[in-house]
Structures are given as structure tokens and as C-alpha cells.
């Protein structure tokens, strides 16, 4: 299948790209319709999303809660800043582990790519330290972030 790429950019960004066989309309809907989100945004085997609230409008809020069925879980909350059906969404989110992480600003683009879609998700963290912490601790559910290839992390900071 199509390959995902994930890399760091500058000191504060993480960029994920992925191609899908479906058109942008479908991929966009799958990102904002709670019934659809609950089917795929689950991370590792065994995790489910019992709560998925998503008000897909500018200023709208969302809340996703994950559980591994063994008493462990966490949640994220966020707000939509912009929604351009079926091209682009911009939102901020933070994870509760259980303390809130600093806001992650996420722009997701859905571009036609032949008969399919190229999705580009660009995350912006407040600073390099936060990004490192997110990469290091976040993602038990494998959510919005993040794997970074070593060469991405090791980009020289000076020429």
C-alpha cells in the first residue's frame, strides 16, 4: 500500500504524509465524522475510542477518549480554527496524560492525487523541547504524532 512519511521540519514541526486510494471528499469526511473516526483513529491493536465528540465547524470543539479495555486510557481535546471542505482543516489540540500537554497546532491538507488523495498533516509545537517531549512520551495511542526517522532528527542545525 501507499507509504507514510513522517519527518521533522525545523525545530518545531512534524510533517506526516500519506496517500489514499479514495478522493479528498471521502478522506476529509473520515477525519471529521465521529462514526468514521471511531473506526480508524485507534493506534495499536486493542485500543478503542469510546468517546468521540467532534463539532466540525470553525470554533467547534472536539474530544476523543481512548481506552485499552484494561483500565488505561487518555484523551485529547481541541478546537477547529478553519475548515475548508474538502481541502483543509486547521485545529489546535492537546493531550491529557493526565496533565495537558502544550497546544499542538495541526494543519491537514487533502489534495487530489490522480484518483486518490495526498494527505499532508503539518504539526507545529510551541518549541523544540515540547516537540521532543511529544515524540518521547505522547502517542501511546499512536495518534496525531509521531515517528521521526533518525535522519530527520539528525538534520544538522548549522550549515
Amino acid at each position, binding site marked *: 500500500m501507499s507509504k507514510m512519511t513522517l519527518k521533522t521540519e525545523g525545530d518545531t514541526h512534524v510533517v506526516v504524509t500519506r496517500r489514499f486510494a479514495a478522493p479528498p471528499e471521502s478522506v476529509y469526511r473520515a477525519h471529521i465524522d465521529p462514526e468514521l473516526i471511531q473506526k*480508524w*483513529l485507534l493506534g495499536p491493536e486493542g485500543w478503542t475510542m469510546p468517546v468521540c465528540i467532534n463539532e466540525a465547524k470553525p470554533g467547534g470543539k472536539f474530544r476523543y477518549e481512548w481506552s485499552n479495555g484494561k483500565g488505561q486510557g487518555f484523551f485529547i481535546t481541541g478546537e477547529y480554527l478553519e475548515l475548508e471542505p474538502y481541502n483543509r482543516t486547521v485545529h489546535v489540540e492537546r493531550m491529557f496524560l493526565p496533565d495537558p500537554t502544550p497546544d499542538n497546532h495541526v494543519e491537514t491538507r487533502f489534495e487530489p492525487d490522480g484518483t486518490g488523495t495526498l494527505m499532508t498533516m503539518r504539526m507545529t509545537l510551541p518549541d523544540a523541547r515540547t516537540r*521532543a517531549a511529544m515524540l518521547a512520551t505522547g502517542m501511546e495511542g499512536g495518534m496525531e504524532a509521531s515517528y521521526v526517522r*533518525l535522519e530527520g532528527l539528525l538534520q*544538522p542545525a*548549522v550549515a
Partner: protein
Amino acid sequence: MHSHLSLDAAFSALADPTRRAILARLATGESTVNELAEPFEMSQPAISQHLKVLEDAGLVTHRVEGTKRPRRLAKPGIEAMDQWLAMLRKALEANYDRLDAVLAGMEKPKRKGGTKR
């Protein structure tokens, strides 16, 4: 035995651009502190301090050669980090593989004139 590797310390160590640059440099081979300090407008003690953070995080190691202590990448540290990152990557990929299945089961959207940009 390897010292205890802390992924948290490893990622924190990577939060600093100078330390990432040092690692990038060490990826091309062993270097002394002098050689490492050269491309940076930084004192040797400052570089040594960065090296200490990297060593504590298990990412860099050194050997003793007379008065020199050449530094190199510590394989176990880099590998542990790589493995852990591969796990995260797998979780994210699992999401998108599931999304492929969800998309395959969705009705094709009706194309209308005017929705194209």
C-alpha cells in the same frame, strides 16, 4: 554492560539544535571535542557540556586515547531510540491502514460541477 538507557533523556537531548548537529557530525565518524567545537561559535566547555548531556542520554560514548577522548555515536542508545520510534510509526501506520479499509467501504462521493477548485 550498557548503562540504563532512558528514551526520555534521549529525546530531551535531541531537543537542542546544537546537540542534533553534534550527532549529525558524529554520524560521519569519531571526532575529538576540538574537531566538534570547530564548526560552532561556541567554547569547548560549552560543547563538552552538550556532549555530557548526549552521553548521559546514552547517545554518545567515548574512549580514552592518551590525553584525547574521541567521541562516537553509542549504537545501543541510537538503536533503542530507533526501535521505539519504529513502534510509534507502526501505530500510526495501523491507523491509516484501517482508514484505507474505512474509505474502501464508503460510498463514492457524487462529483458535482463547481466543487472543484
